[in-house]
């Protein structure tokens, strides 16, 4: 008796399920489980400013992908959640938090922290647990020289910071050939300076001398006068904002006239222009990305739509800086790799990352065998009449290099 009654019920249930199935297969994908990303960024402490920018970049993509229902894997849409932890700007805390994100928060994928130091400690954790990490804010090559398989960086490594300026200089006429490099003696700055010395001969240029100074040096007039005695075509500084300003001031005071002044860090900040006024003009710098670049992305937003989306979401009158852009780019790399893998399996996603090659608003994302993006060029900016212009590579630039820099006396 019972069986006879149950029979029709089962048939009805089966029909119902089938109906549901039909309605949601076909062209539009079904909704799947939520994907959990983990990120330990600096929300307090010395790097809270940069950590906050990193989070902005991640959140910008998070809104966009969830408006579309999530990442599509084998025709199933997986909504995305990012679990944040605050590493208090301490690399060791960062590693502990990444471990916590993986084990107790069940994060399936890790987005990188802010800074080379924290990235280096986090890389050890993800490597051991076999969880892929895409990072956007650790440029030191030392992170990628350990043979790690699960850490990928979307940004150009430190050695590319000023080589873009050499590429640009090689296209100018009359071509500059001699370089004096003034470098701070910290690891990152020395990596940048060494790369210039190694790369210059391939462009028919020569670094006459690399002068080191202690980081945060107060007086650089002696170094600048030594540079002047060599009469170089290009004066380069691999250092920090304070020294970039001091070198520029001393160059004017001592009448050091070069055809190109290029500083690794400093000129891209508004401070450089406000502190130096007209003296900031003609100075070049290398940047990961600028809001003026003209890449033609194959997915996500165009550069101008990205800038608009940022200004709308954060109610900002300033366009996003490169920290925000590269952080969003890390999310895009994950999205594309997961889609390409057609799987949520960490190892398959890792393999898809290794073979990834996409064009985004941030530029090409493709990793070399070490896992760092050596394919995207650094952008060269120049300050012209108090405004930043992107001047190289030519195909993405919105301005032309003003060259040669006129002598101080006729500026």
């Amino acid at each position, binding site marked *: 008796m019972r069986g006879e009654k149950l029979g029709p019920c089962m048939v009805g249930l089966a029909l119902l399920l089938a109906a549901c199935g039909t309605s949601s297969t076909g062209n539009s994908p079904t909704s799947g489980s939520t994907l959990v990303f983990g990120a330990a960024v600096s929300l307090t402490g010395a790097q809270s400013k940069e950590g906050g920018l990193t989070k902005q970049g991640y959140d910008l993509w998070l809104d966009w992908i969830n408006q579309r229902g999530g990442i599509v894997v084998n025709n199933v849409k997986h909504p995305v959640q990012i679990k944040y932890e605050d590493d208090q700007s301490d690399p060791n805390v960062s590693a502990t938090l990444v471990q916590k994100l993986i084990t107790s928060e069940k994060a399936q994928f890790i987005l990188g922290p802010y800074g080379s130091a924290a990235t280096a400690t986090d890389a050890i954790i993800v490597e051991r647990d076999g969880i892929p990490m895409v990072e956007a804010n650790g440029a030191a090559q030392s992170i990628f020289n350990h043979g790690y398989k699960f850490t990928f960086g979307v940004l150009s490594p430190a050695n590319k910071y000023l080589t873009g300026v050499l590429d640009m200089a090689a296209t100018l006429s009359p071509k500059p050939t001699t370089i004096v490099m003034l470098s701070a*003696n910290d690891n990152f700055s020395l990596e940048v300076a060494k790369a210039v010395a190694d790369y210059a001969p391939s462009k028919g240029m020569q670094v006459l001398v690399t*002068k*080191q*100074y*202690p980081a*945060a*040096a*107060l*007086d650089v*007039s*002696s*170094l600048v*006068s*030594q540079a*002047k*005695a060599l009469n170089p075509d290009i004066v380069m500084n691999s250092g920090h*904002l*304070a020294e970039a*300003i*001091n070198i520029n*001031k*001393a160059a*004017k*005071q*001592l*009448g050091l006239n070069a055809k190109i002044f290029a500083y690794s860090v400093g000129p891209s900040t508004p*401070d*450089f222009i*406000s*502190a*130096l*006024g007209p*003296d900031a003009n003609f100075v070049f710098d290398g940047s990961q990305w600028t809001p003026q670049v003209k890449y033609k992305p194959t997915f996500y937003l165009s550069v101008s739509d990205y800038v608009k989306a940022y200004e709308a979401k954060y109610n900002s009158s300033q366009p996003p800086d490169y920290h925000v852009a590269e952080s969003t780019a890390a999310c895009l790399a994950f999205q594309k790799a997961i889609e390409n893998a057609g799987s949520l399996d960490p190892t398959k996603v890792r393999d898809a990352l290794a073979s990834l090659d996409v064009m985004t608003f941030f530029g090409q994302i493709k990793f070399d065998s070490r896992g760092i993006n050596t394919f995207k060029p650094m952008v060269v900016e120049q300050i012209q009449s108090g405004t930043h212009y992107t001047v190289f590579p030519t195909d993405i630039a919105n301005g032309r290099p003003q060259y040669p820099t006129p002598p*101080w*006396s006729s500026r």
Partner: protein
Amino acid sequence: MSQFTQQIILGLLLGGIYVAVALGFSLVWGILNIVNLAHGALVIVGAYITWLLFDRLHVDPFLSLPVDALALFVLGYALQRGVINRVIRAPLLFTFLLTFGINLVIVSLVLLIFTADFRSVTPSYSGNGLHLGSVTIPYIRLGGLAVALLLAGILWAILNRTRIGAAILAVGADRDAAQLVGIDLRHIYALTFAIGAAFAGVAGGIISTSQSITPTAGDPYTLQSFAVVILGGLGRVSATVVGGLAFGLIEVLGQSAPGLGSGYAGAIAFVVLVIVLVVRPRGLLGRLA
């Protein structure tokens, strides 16, 4: 050879800044027996006043130096009379703690008012200089050295040619005896500290023309003042002048020493300092204690 001459000149010009910074530090140390850890913060306050006047009202940085001096004189007098005087006879550690705290407060206030952005004073003539062959002497740095030597002259004149100066020296020599002969101790203390602060302010004004400034940029100047006073010796204006110029020369020549990266310049300067301390503990020109 001309390169060597250029380095010597740059060393003396840099030394001028050290002289200006260290004069006030040396005075306060010598008379009040206070190693003023807030000295660098006072220098930066002066630098910001010059920057503010230049940025908002386009006042020439050298013309704003008297304003720096006056403002810092008032601030210094109030600080000494209101705060530091309370620990003037306490053990050295207390004055260290107090001036360290004052340093933090001033730096934080400057940070609140001016933010951490880098500032710089760049007048139109900052690229002009005297050209002697291949040697360049920037006028703006030459002006800095001239002001430093003028300050030293003023301080010497105050101490040796005025009644106030005599009172200051008397307090420095023996405060109890000075009080016995009718010197108002609190007033002289505050006046001495105020003069020290005023000189720090002027030094800050000079610094803003050749270097970038932030609220935290003052700390190295406290350290350098300390080194200059040790090198030159305590208790004489001329000792501070010699110490400052010598320190500037050593640093610049260290930067250009062949075969050595200038990363060692600081180390060379402090090695010289240690040698002076071993060979001549009272400094190059210091008086015997």
